[in-house]
């Protein structure tokens, strides 16, 4: 049975934003700190470190989760996606990110990466949610700037646009 000593540096092989990567961390290191300070992926923001604010939300094996409540060593062998994974080389922004820009879904942008990672999983599972369902999903995130209206508008506009495209086909 793997027992990891508290002072040992563990080698962590995992897939980060689609690329095989390796890093090292002690057992106590949080995934949020590992991503930012070891892997240099600073799109994972850190707010509260007790699961409440949602800024640190990333996807592990496709599911939105708090990286501040996860240990770095727990992602060995797994797939981690941060906000950096969303837009490819050709597209500077995804449709969802573009809608955040158009509809003033962000001001300081601190909460935005977490919200984008939650919303992209949520819309994959539930492509046509009601506004109430969207607001419920957003309850897992705190935004101190926008008052949420712009965020809700951006998400609803993305849904409408995707539905329109699907209907046109």
């Amino acid at each position, binding site marked *: 049975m793997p027992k990891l000593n508290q002072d040992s540096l563990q080698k962590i092989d995992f897939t980060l934003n689609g690329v095989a990567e390796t890093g090292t961390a002690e057992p106590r290191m949080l995934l949020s*700190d590992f991503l930012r300070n070891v892997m240099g992926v600073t799109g994972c923001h850190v707010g509260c470190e007790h699961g409440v604010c949602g800024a640190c939300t990333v996807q592990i094996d496709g599911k*939105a*989760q708090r990286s501040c409540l996860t240990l770095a060593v727990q992602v060995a062998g797994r797939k981690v996606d941060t906000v950096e994974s969303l837009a490819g080389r050709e597209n500077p922004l995804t449709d969802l990110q573009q809608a955040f820009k158009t509809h003033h879904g962000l001001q300081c942008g601190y909460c935005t990466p977490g919200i984008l990672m939650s919303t992209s999983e949520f819309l994959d599972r539930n492509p046509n949610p009601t506004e109430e369902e969207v607001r419920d999903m957003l309850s897992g995130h705190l935004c101190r700037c926008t008052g949420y209206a712009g965020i809700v508008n951006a998400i609803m506009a993305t849904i409408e646009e995707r539905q329109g495209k699907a209907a046109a086909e």
Partner: protein
Amino acid sequence: MKPRKFDLVRAESTAEALAALSESGGNAKIFAGGQSLMAMMNLRLADPDVMVDISQVTELSYLKEVGDKLEIGAAATQVELLSWPGLAEKLPLLHQAIPHLGHFQTRNRGTICGSLAHSDPSSELPLCLATLEGEVVLRSVRGERVLSAADFQLGMMTTAREDDELIVAARYPFKKPGEGFAFTEVAQRRGDFAITAVAAVASGDVTRLGVGGVADKPTAKNWTNLSDDNLDEELNAFAWELGGSDDIHATAKYRRELVRRLGRRVIEEAKACRS
């Protein structure tokens, strides 16, 4: 804030987890979903020497029907339970309650047994276990025992679990013909811990109401032939029996008012949907 140093056992089987608990001499903690534990570690409210991670123990990651109950293994997550196909029909109370339990991001990791072990008095899953009279299966290297919700839940974040025991599974009884259920809660925001949560079961002339967030543990009471005329009086008496205290979220008086108002609402709803 960050957790202090600890040794981490990444268990691959139940036996390994039990051995690690037994060897640690009391200062080990099970890491299930980490949605309560890691927050407490980061705040340094918990500081175990050893953490035993059971999230990868595949033999504990299951939901299965055992007789008239759903048995939920220790590694099964809240989102897995919420997506269990029979939930709305067979466990309508859980179907109504789980959407209030944190957020989908925390339900993606948090487990059912972890919530029962944590035993926060306002938590939805312990309240449903008490109201439905479910049970938990505790196992250690010394053996296994099954405790009813009443024997397991002892008080504020306190259960009958011994330090070397793992909650291997929880069992929630299925709906029986003729029963109706209703759940609601008041929280500051959707997904926050409830200030007060209520769950009702109505069947024939028996009414059962469970209340979380007022007493130091979820507490349920039965009535026979509870009529609309004496409902307010009975709910008032129950609200006072539960006690409750003032804290930064609400006063005891407000909590009693919630027991009276929400209690009436769920009892009426549960009676109306008996089938």
